[in-house]
């Protein structure tokens, strides 16, 4: 059976993705900082779907542990999905470098560090798929969340470069731009229902996109066009907008 590694497995999106792939009889590797908090999900996946689920300690910002982390996985995963991230507080991050650094590391440098390791292995083996959950916030910087947005922009660019590099090795890289998702990370926000996806919808879309080897996945279709319009606004106008 194929195996999928979920980095940042405690998030609502990762939980939904784990269940979706487990339902299709994938074995699941759950990796995150709080191993104990992942154990109930591990049990759940085993009982509901009869698959093998394992839990692994992983800290996205402990860069020097990443080689060992990947090396010690009992089975090398067929798919690696990077779901960790941190929305943070834009205003705080403007004042407080600790907050800004945390946003950059959790959304960008941490992902680069671990995916470099995974990419090198997949390239050698000429097999595997890498999926990164990025964000539409990375498509153009806006005053309300440009620190998070710039980290995600970096991640999106990294994924696109990686896709380019690994193409010749037969390794596929997919970027996911979910748009608004109803998760714990966003539950304090009042999001527009028509543009907001449930984690299960994201999971279903990712699963389908894996089969069709999509390059860039927008979960709710209006986002593709919303972002297209946002990207087309000339900078001399854009800079005056309150976004």
């Amino acid at each position, binding site marked *: 059976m194929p195996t999928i590694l979920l980095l940042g497995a*405690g998030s*609502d999106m990762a*939980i939904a993705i784990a269940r979706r792939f487990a339902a299709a009889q994938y074995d699941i590797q759950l990796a995150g900082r*709080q191993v104990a*908090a992942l154990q*109930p*999900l591990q*049990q*759940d996946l085993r*009982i*509901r779907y009869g698959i093998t689920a394992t839990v692994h300690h992983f800290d996205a910002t402990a860069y020097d542990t990443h080689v060992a982390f990947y090396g010690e996985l009992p089975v090398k995963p067929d798919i690696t999905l990077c779901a960790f991230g941190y929305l943070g507080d834009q205003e705080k991050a403007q004042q407080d470098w600790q907050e800004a650094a945390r946003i950059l590391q959790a959304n960008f440098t941490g992902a680069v560090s671990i995916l470099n390791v995974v990419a090198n292995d997949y390239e050698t083996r000429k097999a595997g798929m890498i999926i990164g959950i990025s964000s539409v916030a990375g498509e153009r910087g806006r005053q309300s969340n440009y620190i998070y947005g710039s980290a995600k922009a970096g991640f999106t660019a990294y994924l696109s470069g990686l896709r380019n590099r690994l193409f010749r090795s037969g390794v596929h890289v997919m970027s996911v731009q979910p748009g608004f998702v*109803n998760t*714990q990370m966003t*539950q*304090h*926000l*009042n*999001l527009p229902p028509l543009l907001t996806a449930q984690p299960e919808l994201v999971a279903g879309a990712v699963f389908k996109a894996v089969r069709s080897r999509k390059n860039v996945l927008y979960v709710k279709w209006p986002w593709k066009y919303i972002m297209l319009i946002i990207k087309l606004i000339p900078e001399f106008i854009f800079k005056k907008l309150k976004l």
Partner: protein
Amino acid sequence: MQKRLANWGNYPAITSEESAYSQEEQLRSFVVANHGFIARGNGRCYGDASLGKHSLSMLKYDNILSFDTVAGVLETQAGVTLDQILDIIVPKGWFLPVTPGTKFITVGGAVASDVHGKNHHVDGAFSGHIIDMDVITGDGTTITCSPSRHTDLYWATCGGMGLTGVITRVKFGLKKIETAYIKQKQIKARNLEEVVRLFEEYKHYTYSMAWIDCLQKGDAFGRSILIVGEHATKEDLNAKQGQAPLQQPAKPRLTVPFNLPSFILNTFTVKAFNWLYYGKNFKKEINNVVPYEPFFYPLDAILHWNRGYGKAGFIQYQFVLPLEQKEGLIAILRRISDKGWGSFLAVLKVFGRQESLISFPMEGYTLALDFPVRKGLFAFLDELDDIVLQYGGRLYLSKDARMKQDVFWKSYPHADRFAEIVQTYNPGKRFESLQSERLSLTK
């Protein structure tokens, strides 16, 4: 997130700030940091028990923690719904020990309402099958309680409508089955007298309930159909069913996409009943073997059937009267049928004995029917409450959205003790619902 919330009766509907978490430590932090909120499951209680200005949705706290397929013991987090559980346990030869008429409720909700099913007279309510459970109480500590540990918390949590704390984990025993089918018997009863006698005659059956036609008068007053059943054995199945005895045949689901004018549902139920009663089969008794879904969850097949009652919503009125008070049952049914405001059909069931602190069931007759919300309804229901009180009965908190305070305090014999325990684990109204405020259950 600000959300428009209502339970199954669509009355009342409020705006609530809702939060949801998937990890216990997050739930604990929320409990410690917040005040005046209530945990909610899938919103299938009918009234205002799980409604509050602030609510904690448990639907993301939904892992299955262990399943002992040999002993038949299941342990889950509180947000898992019964339909998910059935999908897992039925193929392994196990069934829920007790199930209400919908499978779309959470385990936490099953405990908080101490739900009963068609087998109450044999197997009791849900609380009778709990091995142990965890509750995050007012000070943020998780307490494991059971019939032998922290018994005060245990008994006040079963049927306690979420007021002792947030139920997080429940471990309970399952019922062994050979097949996913029910061997059912439907018997026509000409009137109330006869159906009461039939309940007695068929009380050895594990499952029983009756549909009563509320509109009949005279000799046919209380004409009904008694439905009894047992889990089918492999020998009971036909060849096709026997090929996969623990699977039920797949069926498409219907849904009511929006609120319909309120007469529609009654028209539906009238037809269904008449079909059963007069339809192709004039026999007194029909015997057949059916999958468990249509037997236990006939209305679940029509998702959102509650919308059939229109935008104003409805009240499901469910009371229980002691066994010796058959006259009370007749008196109330007469009032209902004279008024003509209720649904055409009501569900009648005989409960067995149950020891409890605050649970609804007691040995006697329980009747449930729907009343679309309209002008004058609440005054009428107050009159019915008086009759219920007069005959020593009580109302089901999970269905209630409007009972007056004194009706509750007069009808639940251990209400004072319950409120005392709630006060111990939930001082200062940390857990609070519209219902607890209305009935003054918390201090």
